[in-house]
């Protein structure tokens, strides 16, 4: 599925370098229906740098699609503003916004061939025949669609349809590319390939992109930054690494990857670090700004793969007892009963034949560098 290497000057001219900055200012959308008013998007503020690939990530119904559709102009914001390169575009209809969307259903025109689909936007722009032919050839090459020009969309596989949809969006030289769960109709293998493909193309053209997904793995692997949304609001905006290591809330930590939450009472707070006693050890860990000394509802977030189990061999009892082990191939998951509740510990790269048996007494150690102190909401 990997595309042939492509010359970087391919397809069409890139948008002028440095354009495509997109700002959402306290964007809010309320739907009024028979059953009352729903706030689908609540005060979303976001500054997307030109050329940046940003993902809106969150559970179903949290308002991702609505946000994207407001950016595209399909929905009017109830309040708030959208700026593109500093100009307010709130009142521009979708036709006049220099953006292109890749739909979840691809929305390829079934009555047109691949070539006609791709040329559609160019025809609307009244480009000359030569220009259309050039853009088309380059789009087909860079999307690995050469030879399929005359096929009808339903004669293509899901992945190919996806690439046609992307090509159709790209040739119109949008300043912003919008994606609404574009990979959710593909099978797992193809999905991985398409992630790389989309990211490669996006980097090649340097087009500002907003990508909606509910798949955290997709978000982590593709994005420059991730916007985690929950219940119509933004929970956190940060790079994938930051989101993973320093989630701003229990919700984010739980939604992105797996996490143990160990109840902890901060004894001392010193700027962004705090001292807590967890599983019988005093640790100095990084803390979220909302954490207060002596506060209740504070948890130490520890990723399962940052914990270590050591069997207690000399007949003594450790901190915990192994309840269950699950073998996953490259890793082994243990559920360990401890004084602080049941925790999950992942060991990577161990010989599975040396897995700890159920009932083994173990000591559990936490890497304080990689733990993070959070408050519940």
């Amino acid at each position, binding site marked *: 599925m990997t595309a042939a290497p492509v010359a970087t000057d391919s397809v069409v001219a890139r948008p002028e370098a440095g354009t495509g900055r997109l700002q959402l200012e306290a964007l809010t959308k309320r739907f009024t229906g028979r059953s009352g008013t729903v706030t689908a998007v609540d005060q979303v503020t976001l500054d997307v740098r030109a050329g940046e690939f940003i993902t809106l990530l969150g559970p179903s119904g949290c308002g991702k699609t609505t946000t994207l559709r407001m950016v595209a102009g399909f929905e009017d914001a109830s309040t708030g503003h959208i700026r593109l390169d500093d100009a307010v575009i709130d009142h521009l209809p979708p036709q006049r916004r220099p953006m*292109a969307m890749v739909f979840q*259903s691809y*929305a390829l025109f079934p009555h047109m061939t691949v070539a006609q689909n791709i040329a*559609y936007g160019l025809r609307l722009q009244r480009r000359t025949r030569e220009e259309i032919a050039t853009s088309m050839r380059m789009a087909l090459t860079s999307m690995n669609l050469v030879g399929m020009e005359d096929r009808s*969309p339903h004669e293509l596989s899901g992945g190919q*349809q996806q690439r046609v949809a992307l090509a159709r969006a790209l040739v119109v030289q949008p300043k912003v590319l919008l994606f609404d769960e574009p990979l959710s109709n593909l099978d797992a293998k193809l999905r991985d390939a398409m992630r790389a493909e989309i990211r490669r193309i996006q980097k090649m053209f340097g087009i500002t992109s907003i990508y909606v997904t509910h798949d955290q793995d997709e978000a982590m692997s593709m994005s420059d930054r991730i916007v985690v949304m929950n219940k119509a609001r933004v929970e956190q905006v940060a790079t994938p690494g930051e989101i993973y290591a320093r989630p701003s809330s229990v919700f984010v930590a739980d939604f992105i990857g797996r996490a143990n939450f160990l109840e902890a009472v901060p004894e001392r707070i010193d700027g962004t670090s705090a001292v807590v006693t967890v599983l019988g050890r005093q640790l100095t860990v990084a803390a979220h700004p909302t954490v207060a000394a002596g506060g209740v509802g504070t948890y130490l977030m520890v990723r399962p793969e940052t914990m270590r189990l050591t069997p207690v061999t000399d007949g003594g009892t450790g901190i915990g007892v192994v309840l269950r082990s699950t073998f996953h191939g490259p890793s082994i998951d243990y559920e360990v009963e401890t004084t602080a509740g049941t925790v999950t510990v992942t060991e990577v790269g161990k010989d599975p034949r040396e897995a700890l048996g159920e009932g083994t007494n173990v000591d559990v150690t936490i890497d304080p560098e990689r733990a993070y102190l959070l408050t519940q909401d």
Partner: protein
Amino acid sequence: MTVLLSEPAPAAGPTAAGPRRPRRDLGVQALIIASIVLVTIGAVVPLVAVLATAFGSDALPRYAEFFTSSVDLTILRNTLVLGFLVGVCGTALGFLFAFVQARLDVPGKKILHVIALMPIVSPPFAVATATVVLYGRRGVISNGLFGIEYDIYGLDGLVFVLSLSLFPVAYLGLLGMLRGLDPALEEAAMNMGATRWQILRTVILPLLAPGLVAPFLLLFVEAIADLANPLVLGGDYTVLASRAYLAVTGEYDTTSAAVYCVILLVPSLAMYFGQRWWLNRKVRTTITGRPSGSVHLVTGWARWPIYGLALLAAAVIVSLYGTVIVGAVTRVFGVDNTFTLDYLKEVVLGVGSEAVLDTLTFAAIATPVAAFFGLVVAWLVVRHLHRTAWLLDLGGTLGVAVPGTVLGIGFVLAYRPDRYIGDFQVFPSLVGGGAIAGGAFAIVLAYVVRSVPAGQRTAVGALTQLHPYIEQASTDLGASPLRTFRWVTLPLIRPALLTGLSYSFARSMTSVSTIVLLVTPETKIITSQVLSAASTGRYGVAFAYCTVLTALVLVAFALIRLVVGAGVSLQRTVTSERQKR
């Protein structure tokens, strides 16, 4: 436990007899036979009678005559031109209403929807009669308002009336299709810079184009099969249906009539089955994934001219039906506008009461029978028959595929004479003076056969969507197929039953073309009374009949819904009738 033990072992392998098809349940067999008998006596025998007469030795020279006679050729051309024009105009009108309904941001769309459905529940020539009164030479509007002496009789009047009467089918079909378009397609176009007009031209119309073919063909068939309107409004413009009718009733020349019927049958059947084939093709309009996005209604100034056009059409429809109602209580509408209840009295209490009563009785008998057989034929076709399914399906459909006039003439040919084998009378005369029960049997049979297809189609649609596992679960528990049908299938497809009943009743009450050939002095039918009143210029009486008839249909709809339950709106009712598969 004993029950379980007495059950045959489920895993039993092939018996000594080897693998065999399970023997058909007796009840199912009985239903198959009953359906075949109904289809045979109601449609196949009359059709064969027509064909036998039309290809009998004394008929053959008529073809040469037909194809050399300029009069006859003109009739053929008239018929085809009428079908074509009604197909085009009716489909265009249907598209106009559907587009306004689905895509314009304008007020009053609910009312517009109801207006567009009005022609379904009224007898076909109510519009024709009202048209003469309003838009004819002495028309209240054409002459009274605009001072024009317009001759509405002829092709123009027929196209006008038939398009207005028949377009609801096109409207509902196209509305369903427009609503079914993935809105994301339009958004994709919008997103790439297409204007409203460009979206309509490059996306919506090309996608709907295949969908325009089926309503066109259907309207074509219905237009060339229509008899009542050419009789009332045709003037010198003769079509095959009215020519055949005249041959039977005026010239007593059944051979000529049969020949005209066969010539009418060819385009009818071709178009009808062409339409079915077209609908059944596997067309891919959507590709992957579920529809997404939302519909963006047209809000700009461009909506107003389109809306205006639809309003104009709606105003015409309302004026016509208004005339029917007002005309029923006015001495001479447009000339002597004094209020009178005489016409309604004549219809409800006077000479007309007999017709109203007879019609109601026959329709009340025919409706459940037709709905029942519609369901049964569908159930047999979808669930129980395999290789022979298409044959029964086809048989059940003959009632609408064959033009009503042809069917009526078939009845006359097949059932008017007493049938003897030797000296023994096996079949008494069913049609005409001296027929048993005054011809009532033939009339009810004609109602049933004409109404079965609507119920059948709805039920085929409903059953196809119902997963067979649901029924298999019941049979696995030991229920016989009939029990399963009664207790599982029927409740699940109740909306289809409701549709079947409503449609059967409406069709029975308003059908003309077959019935006018079957009425006898003892059996009077509202529609044939209207026809004679309208063609003798007694418009007040005709309007009174139409008003009463429409009221009866609406009351029956309410009653049927009350009895059967299931809150299904008329729209749903009718659209589901249109969806087959």
